[in-house]
């Protein structure tokens, strides 16, 4: 066995273990990249190969534990599907190219495109990484406003609603809550380790947990009660709960009087939504709604409705924004805003600036081409995130001409892939930065191999917010296997090649030190520990909020001025299944604990679980399935306006009869991803391209499908 083979780490795990039995073990603190939570961990390296990982007990976000992706995804560093050098597509085939040559060619092409079409014709889209500030700086230095995140397919409605109500996105003090209600969020499946640990702690202290979800999700296993709401109607349930709180005077009177505006308007409006009305819409019995509302109010202010994420309120329905508003208002009525056991403003580290040492470019002042920033176009849209699933539309219209896709795979994670492919193919230049040939990378003109997270140092991160802020850092754990570079390095290199290097005259260490400086944290200490607490601990209560009135806005005059109801009103979903057609279902989706977006399905350790436990199936309510002749394990055909596909079904009693549920993360169609290729389907295959008129999100559960026995 050669030293080279060992250091490459491509040996079978067990053969390597035997060869390395006596080797010393090195422990290096870093952060995971198996999803966006960036959990802090210790990596154990033996003989140059990553062996195993352990959760860092200091970390707010994961409190010493790790999920299956944390353990499984590390093996992807040794995945034979990884790209070994920069690639250029020549007549449909990829050819290796040197970094210098790739940069030179990319710079030439971009300069010509920008000369002809203006600086706004270039974009950058990424699933946020700690280096996102540098990507934004890169776009600004070129004069383009077009930096995008994946937000419009994920969370923008939720963020907008919380911003309008309390001025910012808060967190949940789950561990100290006496009553936890969770609507459309599943921290035990779309894993948030710290949240699950906190729910368990709260339960041990006697808290009650209620989960509202059309599917009996993984968090429901821990709950005292599961309320199987009809998908798309969570708003009716929340309005009825508010109705009960108001009519039975269960709300926190002192808090409402001192800290909110618009309660009078709420009283006048909410009278329209008694529980008996809601029952007919959301299928939760009126008496249950009344009982749950009384129970949660009894524990106020140490009671909460989870702040939510993607499901129900993030980017799912036409009414997601109003649903999130109702959810925020219901919390305010419990008097729990910034209270122990309630919704609280977590302490998050505010990193320092690079200027004045390294002056920032003057950013472009105009709106984005997706409409965010144009008054009245998407009045509640997020300018910072942009509307990334509009990129293909803007490319087809010739507005965007070239761009970078980094740590993101829109061909698989955006709705309506045929349209997405058409759009991204229309670009005159597409550069993808990824460790593997994802669907998006496989149609790029150039692919730049990003280092795997275990192979590179990166920018400091602030993800571990909590009762005391923390900073964390990704560190190089093993030597890079191939000719790859870190995301930070690629951004700096590209800027230099494109003639805007004057904004990037710093090394990673210098930049990290500058950003840590105002926090009083030393880079050396952070590297040694992986995570460091900074700033003062969280305190209860608040002064002036970031809303126009400085208070919790039950009624929002800003919304009213924009032509929206000041108080949430019932709004039906955009589409609904046909009750008379036994084949008509709403298609909803959710995460399994073992997969993240489209990036882990190619990981053999994680995909082995999908196969062993037969998890790549469409969930369907048993009675509905039997009506259309489907038995457990049968193959069903799914059809929507834009897509069709075949998949085996799992019959269950744990799903609302009006919908079918597809696990996200499958349906990989890049033939370069050999483990995941052609396994299962993605909900995106069936989704039309939609833009919610207020926030611009993807409305990713507004799709009706026909399900038949194949």
């Amino acid at each position, binding site marked *: 066995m050669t030293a080279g083979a060992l250091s490459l780490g491509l040996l079978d795990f*067990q053969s390597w273990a035997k060869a390395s039995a006596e080797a010393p073990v090195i422990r290096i603190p870093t952060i995971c990249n198996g999803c966006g939570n960036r959990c802090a961990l210790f990596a154990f390296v033996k003989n140059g190969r990553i062996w195993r990982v352990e959760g860092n007990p200091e970390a707010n976000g994961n409190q010493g534990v790790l999920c299956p992706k944390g353990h499984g995804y590390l093996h992807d560093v040794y995945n034979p599907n990884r790209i070994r050098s920069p690639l250029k597509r020549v007549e449909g085939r990829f050819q290796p190219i040197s970094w210098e040559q790739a940069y030179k060619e990319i710079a030439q092409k971009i300069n010509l495109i920008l000369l002809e079409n203006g600086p706004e014709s270039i974009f950058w889209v990424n699933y946020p990484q700690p280096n996102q500030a540098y990507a934004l700086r890169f776009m600004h230095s070129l004069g383009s406003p077009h930096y995008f995140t994946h937000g419009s397919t994920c969370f923008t409605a939720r963020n907008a609603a919380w911003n309008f109500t309390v001025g910012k996105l808060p967190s949940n003090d789950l561990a100290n809550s006496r009553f936890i209600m969770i609507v459309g969020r599943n921290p035990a499946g779309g*894993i948030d380790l710290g949240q699950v640990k906190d729910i368990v702690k709260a339960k041990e202290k006697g808290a009650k947990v209620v989960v509202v979800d059309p599917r009996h999700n993984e968090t429901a296993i821990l709950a005292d009660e599961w309320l199987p709401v009809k998908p798309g109607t969570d708003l009716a349930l929340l309005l009825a709960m508010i109705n009960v709180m108001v009519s039975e005077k269960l709300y926190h009177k002192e808090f409402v009087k001192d800290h909110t505006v618009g309660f009078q308007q709420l009283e006048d409006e909410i009278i329209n939504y008694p529980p008996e009305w809601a029952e007919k819409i959301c299928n939760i019995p009126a008496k249950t709604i009344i009982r749950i509302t009384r129970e949660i109010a009894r524990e106020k202010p140490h009671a909460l409705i989870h702040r939510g994420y993607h499901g129900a309120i993030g980017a799912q329905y036409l009414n997601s924004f109003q649903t999130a508003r109702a959810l925020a208002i219901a919390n305010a009525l419990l008097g729990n805003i910034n209270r122990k056991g309630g919704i609280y403003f977590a302490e998050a580290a505010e990193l320092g600036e690079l200027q004045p040492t390294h002056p920032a470019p003057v950013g472009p002042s105009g709106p984005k081409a997706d409409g965010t920033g144009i008054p009245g176009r998407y009045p509640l849209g997020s300018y910072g995130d942009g509307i990334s699933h509009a990129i293909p539309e803007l490319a087809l219209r010739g507005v965007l001409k070239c761009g970078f896709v980094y740590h993101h795979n829109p061909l698989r994670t955006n709705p309506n892939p045929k349209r997405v492919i058409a759009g991204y193919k229309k670009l005159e230049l597409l550069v993808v930065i990824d460790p593997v040939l994802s669907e998006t990378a496989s149609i790029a003109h150039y692919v730049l191999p990003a280092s795997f997270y275990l192979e590179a140092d990166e920018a400091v991160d602030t993800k571990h917010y909590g009762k005391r802020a923390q900073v964390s850092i990704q560190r190089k754990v093993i030597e890079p296997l191939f000719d790859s570079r870190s995301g930070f390095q690629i951004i700096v290199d590209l800027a230099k090649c494109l003639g805007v290097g004057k904004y990037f005259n710093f090394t990673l260490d210098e930049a990290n030190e500058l950003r840590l400086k105002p926090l009083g944290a030393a880079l050396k200490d952070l590297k040694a520990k992986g995570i460091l607490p900074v700033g003062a601990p969280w305190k209860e209560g608040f002064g002036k909020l970031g809303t126009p009135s400085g208070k919790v806005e039950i009624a929002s005059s800003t919304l009213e001025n924009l032509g929206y109801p000041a108080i949430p009103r019932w709004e039906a979903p955009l589409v609904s299944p046909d009750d008379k057609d036994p084949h008509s279902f709403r298609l909803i989706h959710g995460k399994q604990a073992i997969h993240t977006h489209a990036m882990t399905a190619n990981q053999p350790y994680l995909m082995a679980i999908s196969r062993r436990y037969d998890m790549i199936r469409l969930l369907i309510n048993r009675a509905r399935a039997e009506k259309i002749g489907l038995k457990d394990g049968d193959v069903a055909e799914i059809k929507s306006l834009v897509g069709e596909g075949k998949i085996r079904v799992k019959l269950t009693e744990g799903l609302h009869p009006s919908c079918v549920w597809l696990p996200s993360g499958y349906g990989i169609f890049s033939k370069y991803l050999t483990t995941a290729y052609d396994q299962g389907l993605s909900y995106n295959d069936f989704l039309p391209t939609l833009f919610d008129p207020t926030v611009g999100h993807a409305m990713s559960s507004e799709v009706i499908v026909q399900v038949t026995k194949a």
Partner: protein
Amino acid sequence: MAKYGMVIDETKCVGCYACRVACQNQNHLRENEAYNYLEEREFGTFPNFNREFLPVQCQHCDNPPCVSVCPTGASHKRKDGIVLVNEKDCIGCKYCIAACPYNVRIIKKEGYIEKCRFCIEFVEEGGKPACMTTCMTGVRMFGDLDDPQSDIAQFIARNGHRLRVLKREMNTKPRIFYRKA
């Protein structure tokens, strides 16, 4: 001498499979080799429904059928209660697989039989089994059953009426105790 055992809380497992992959890494297993598995069960009819996941692994029985059928002594029970397979003595006859009522033994690519080892090398250095330390809901508890001060011994003392063992009728005397749902 310590007498190792485990408690598994049936009410807490949400089926995330972190224990499976943490164990695979700790023990250098290939992707299709696993020392533990989860059994999912559903109860009731919509909307009155619940489900649970039951984690299963080698029960480290005090009366281990795998040991009594092993023709070479490869499968053996240590004084500290842990059942192990000595890889060098294993001839791969699979008698132990047939005898074990818990379906927890695997055939390694190399031809010998393996199974959960309670991460014994790790435990001897003061660690805990990887399946336990990674778990976000704290399903497992591990320790010395003979030490009245240990968490596990105290838990068993407090919760005797809530405990059960798997397949008690087989008289295998498992050292994994399940806290009933």
